[in-house]
């Protein structure tokens, strides 16, 4: 495989692994912009951000946030940058989705600033229209509910108990997956 990040998972390169998990890896690579740059990426191979499932994305982002917090003390950084390069036009060099955490100091030599452009109001309104149409289709709540239902259905086949957190009420519910047949069988046994 040409993918560097998959090679890191298989331990074929010189990269140093800091933290490993079933789903996520944290490692330091050879080819970086500054010493101290840390990459966080999922174990499975996803090329771009849109292909990564919701759960894994959430986990990666939480871990990247904590890496950023740890770097302040450990490397004596005065600031951090978190960057995702998504797509060839954005400068993605490895076809494996990853989040980069870059520690910064004042006299670095690095400059991520961009020159702001001046756009006319017509263009801005066009952009507004187009994006609003697409954004209205987004419904995160329903997506998360669907995923949860699928998980419950899988578990109901096995017949186990599951604790589920309701985001609305913020309480834990115990969902007992009892099959209907058990109830009927019990009622049969009661009849003398």
């Amino acid at each position, binding site marked *: 495989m040409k993918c560097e990040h998959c090679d890191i998972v298989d331990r074929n390169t010189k990269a140093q692994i800091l933290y490993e998990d079933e789903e996520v890896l944290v490692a*330091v690579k*050879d080819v*970086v912009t500054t010493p101290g740059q840390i990459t966080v990426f999922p174990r499975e191979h996803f090329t771009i951000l849109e292909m990564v499932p919701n759960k894994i994305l959430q986990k990666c982002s939480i871990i990247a946030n904590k890496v950023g917090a740890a770097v302040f003390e450990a*490397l004596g950084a005065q600031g951090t940058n978190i960057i995702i390069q998504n797509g060839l036009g954005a400068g993605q060099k490895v076809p494996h989705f990853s989040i980069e955490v870059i520690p910064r100091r004042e006299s670095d030599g690095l400059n991520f600033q961009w020159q702001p452009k001046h756009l006319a109001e017509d263009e801005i309104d066009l952009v*507004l229209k*187009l*994006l609003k149409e697409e954004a209205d289709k987004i419904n995160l709540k329903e997506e998360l509910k669907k995923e949860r239902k699928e998980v419950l259905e899988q578990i109901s086949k096995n017949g186990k108990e599951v604790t589920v957190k309701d985001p609305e009420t913020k309480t834990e519910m115990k969902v007992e997956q009892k099959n209907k047949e058990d109830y009927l069988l019990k009622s049969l046994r009661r009849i003398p």
Partner: protein
Amino acid sequence: MSRELSDSLSNLAPEQRKELEEKLKKMSPEQLQELQKQQCIFCQILAGKVPSKKIYEDEVCTVIIDINPASKGHLLIMPKEHYAIMPQIPEEVVGHLFLVCKHLSKALLKALKAEGTNIFIANGPAAGQRAQHTIIHLIPRKEGDLVLDLQEKLFDEEMLEKVKGAVESKLKEVLGVGKAVEEAIEEQESKKKEVKRAEREEDHTEEKEIIPLHRKRGPGEEEFFITSLTAKRYHQERCAFAQNIPADKRIVFAKEEASKSGLKPCTCVTGKKIHLKTTESKIRKERKKTKTKTKKQPLERHKKQSEKKHQKQHQKQNENHTKKHTKKQREEQLQKKEGFVSLDDIADLFK
């Protein structure tokens, strides 16, 4: 809070500055937070006081178009609550923000036909953060535009090892995994053990105080005495006679009333002898057995003068006595006395 306020303070005259600083010290943290919200532009945008172009709104976050964009379609995603930097934000909110980014980048790729998107977060002024509110930048990209160029270089293995050594332990502490957590658990367990040990030692010391052994106490030390209705004498607490009295029939009285009672004191009270219960007497006997029976030699100064003289004479005699024992020595001595002659010499004359 300090940066924005200090910038605004620097514009004021020194007198007004002093007044404001005094006010700030007196205010509570809640009031300080409200001040921050008034100063923060983005909090005002989110509240609706400043006009802006919103694209998506949620319970947790909102998305607006940037006024000074890097390219067409530059979006800003920010949480509704005011946080200064990302590490302060709770986990659930962070996950939610990134999911929103994912959906919006999909929309950008569709609607504006971009070739790629960049997600950019700056924590701290050294990283390029200009506002006091955490913002996620979502920038659509095309090849050749000079927006975010990360030029990569090759580094040595030493650098990698240094970074790993510095960051690994702190990371695991933050994530709640690994040796740091195990060490913390060990500390807790050791603390629990120490607490248990301390409790046990306290119990032991209390027991020791209750049973004072072998040490005799004079009549002046006791505070109270024990008798019964039909007794003729009164006893100390640790006396075996007192311990045999059942609790119902015990009478306790203080030292001062002893003379008024008309009872005689037991030998334990007078100090001559104590009758202890079996356990204590056994311990005393064992101690006597373990003691070695060596005669104590009296000291020299206690000896009488005649005894000292005798000893000296004995020593001299012993020295001489050893010489007399051998035959040769006897003969020599005899020869020395008054010209003694041997019989062998005389036998030649009589022949």
